[in-house]
């Protein structure tokens, strides 16, 4: 491949949209072309900056309550906005409300930003932790499908006792586990398999609420929090089945 043919594909590479053949050809070109590499790194940097500095807005609790509340009362007439989206009166009120919202928003912005940056950083570590475990010889420290063997393995190695389940009867057999390091602390990594796909389930005690679903380069990750424990499942298994795995793990 030449630089001329590589450059238009750099963004597709970044966005995980190339097939393995195309990826391999570009990576091969990178081996002898520092200028294409540096252009690619600029794109990576921009993407990383966007993800770390710019945050996901979460639906306000009031909105969530309205929607879920009306669903549970099974009354779809209630699934109506408080006021219609037309009319000058609406816009006048909205403008006034805007000032109030802007003031309270700026106060919360710094707090939200740091919280969100943290979440993104953890996601980054989950992905690299998964990759490392697949590339190196160190996928498992304890290799056993018996949860009565895996769970006690962590005693004395972690300051908490992880919730270890075997979902073999549901097609997600436990393979083993290891101690890993994430979010600034030692965590339990439980290894499951679904056909040929490896699933890493990272778990540690955490009070931070979070339920992200992030996909990168064809790998999916699902975050859940339950009863003071954080769970991050990551795999190249398709997202639906990965979510199924997580749902069943947490019932």
């Amino acid at each position, binding site marked *: 491949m030449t630089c001329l043919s590589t450059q238009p594909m750099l*963004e*597709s590479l970044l*966005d*995980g*949209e190339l097939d393995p053949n195309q990826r391999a050809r570009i990576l091969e070109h990178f081996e002898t072309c520092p200028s294409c590499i540096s252009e690619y790194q*600029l*794109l990576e940097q*921009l*993407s990383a*900056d*966007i*993800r770390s*500095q*710019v945050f*996901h*807005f*979460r*639906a*306000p609790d*009031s*909105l*969530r309550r*309205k*929607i*879920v509340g009306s*669903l*549970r009362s*099974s009354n*779809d007439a209630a*699934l*109506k*906005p*408080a*006021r219609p*989206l*037309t009319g000058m009166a609406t*816009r006048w009120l*909205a*403008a006034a*409300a*805007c000032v109030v*919202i*802007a003031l309270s*928003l700026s106060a919360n912005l710094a707090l939200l930003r740091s919280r969100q940056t943290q979440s993104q950083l953890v996601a980054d570590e989950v992905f690299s932790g998964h990759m490392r475990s697949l590339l190196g010889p160190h996928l498992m420290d304890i290799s056993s499908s018996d949860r009565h063997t895996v769970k006690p393995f962590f005693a004395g190695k972690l300051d908490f006792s992880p919730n270890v389940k075997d979902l073999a009867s549901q097609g997600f057999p436990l393979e083993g586990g290891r101690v890993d390091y994430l979010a600034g602390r030692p965590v339990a990594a439980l290894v499951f398999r679904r056909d040929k796909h490896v699933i890493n389930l990272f778990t540690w005690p955490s009070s931070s609420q979070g*339920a992200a679903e*992030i*996909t*990168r380069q064809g790998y999916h990750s699902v975050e859940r929090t339950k009863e003071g424990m954080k769970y991050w499942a990551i795999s190249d298994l398709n997202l639906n089945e990965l979510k199924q795995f997580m749902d069943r793990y947490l019932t």
Partner: protein
Amino acid sequence: MATENHKASLFERMIVPHLDASYNLARWFTRGGPDTEDIVQEAYLRAYRYFDTFIGENARAWILTIVRNTCLTWHSRQKEDSVMFDESTHSANSGLVDPEQEMLRNARIGSLQVCIESLPNDLREVLVMREIEELSYKEIASVALIPIGTVMSRLSRSRKRLQACMAITDGKT
């Protein structure tokens, strides 16, 4: 009645999990406008009404399409009052704010978020869907109703603009 309860419960399990992503997309679309919550609520009302047409393939793309359409409806009602522009319709003599100048001005105030907010609508929504919602090109194409080639070119143009915007910001610090 049983059918209604079943529908509501199914909707809650399949569509409501994407409420944060829906709010996020609407919020970026409206640039933090005060109607964001109402837009999302209206979008969910429509989604609930059309739920029978949902085949079950990709719930997130499905609800985000509805959210986006609801944003566009809101946008077209707002058009009389405010200045909103699309890159494709901007012309030098229109008297509207020059997007390049607007971006340079925002760069001096200096933050990536502000740079993104100053992108024209059609570029910004593709960037937000890719970088923040992490949708694939195919999903973005189906939500925004544009060909995949257009997704790629808009993404590319928005990234170049952001790099220029950030270069100015970095240059000043």
